[in-house]
């Protein structure tokens, strides 16, 4: 097995200052623009104006995380995006409450 080193020159931390375009988000999830539009419609990812052109939409790391999780739920559990949105909301709430319990010194497990 051979090895070599490549130095990456284009490292960007995805954020609101360095966001992903809608087609980047779709590509990162192995999906298409129509799928991203459905994410927006379901509120799984947010844009300032859902009626604006998808070309104007921008997404940060939290949106990418939500989109990837929705994709996995859709693929592995066969759920629709409306159900995925509810599952993700519940998942975030469970994690938030577990963090609160941890801060209070209780074991959440």
């Amino acid at each position, binding site marked *: 097995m051979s090895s070599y080193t490549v130095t990456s020159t284009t490292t960007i*931390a995805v954020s609101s*200052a360095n966001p992903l375009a809608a087609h980047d988000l779709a590509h990162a999830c192995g999906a298409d623009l129509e799928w991203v539009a459905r994410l927006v419609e379901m509120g799984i990812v947010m844009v300032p104006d859902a009626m604006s052109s998808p070309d104007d939409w921008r997404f940060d790391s939290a949106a990418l995380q939500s989109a990837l999780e929705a994709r996995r739920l859709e693929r592995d559990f066969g759920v629709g995006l409306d159900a995925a949105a509810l599952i993700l909301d519940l998942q975030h709430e469970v994690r938030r409450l577990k963090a609160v319990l941890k801060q209070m010194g209780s074991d959440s497990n």
Partner: protein
Amino acid sequence: MDFKDYYKTLGIDPGASEEDVRKAYRKLARKYHPDVSKEPDAQARMRDLNEANDVLRDKEKRAAYDALAARVAQGYGAGPEGSGNYQPPPGWDSGFEFHRGPAQGPADHADFSEFFSSVFGKGEHRGAQSRQYRARGEDHHAAIEISIEDAIKGVEREIVLRAIEADAKGQPAIVNRTLSVKIPAGVHPGQFIRLGGQGMPGQGGEAAGDLYLEVRLAPHKLYRVDGRDLYMTLPVTPSEAALGAQVQVPTPGGGVVEVTVPPNARSGLKLRLKGRGLPGAPPGHLYLLLEIALPPANTEAARQAYEQLAKAAPFDPRQHLATSGV
């Protein structure tokens, strides 16, 4: 490298139907999903389940895996599961291509085993190469764990990626690529670092995909992370808590700040150092949780001091239990 028995992982027979695979995965995923599971090894079990499901729910991958398993059963290239001696036999996957359809989602193999990468990474790559159309390469996903200090100050780290490239004879060979990755200052957990062009190669002259690295923070001996906020236990003596004090506290960004402990502070009191958590817009805070540490009464002088304190400041911490007269 261990040979992975994916059927055993999902608790099904090799003859299981697609529906059986789906049911087994969903049932076990509910049991081991880290958000709901009480099992101590939930995270590792969920990772194994995802890997087994990724192969067995895909007809092409499953057929290739079954062929491989049959050869392993005949003794080719195999050590049994757990022996660590498995190597895929040369040409084991000839005749198979692994296509990633539009509904199959991202190539998120970041957490999968070396076995998976060596067997299915190769097949997926060749499948992609043989298609006759133009398409940008797939994006890939992986995770990188860094310290809190590195997240704040930025760091350069090397990661090793496994890829298939043609060797001197034009034959596909596994190549370890080492990427030197600059993590910018001020990243937070869950943030993605995007490395342009470091995903799968494009087809028909199209651009390569990107690599997304998800930032994870390593456990820290002092700080606990919640979003961008950091929590630290701050031990103080009884006299510092009672009388108030100025104490020095290390901050994750480096340096030391002086913090005022107010008089009559109780154990568990939370002090906030605004903006001293992880960077961001807005930055997180550093919370100090007061913990009163008792000096041991292991000398005569210390014992006398405790006795004098008891006389000078009579105090019943169990008054609310209303046990007097019971």
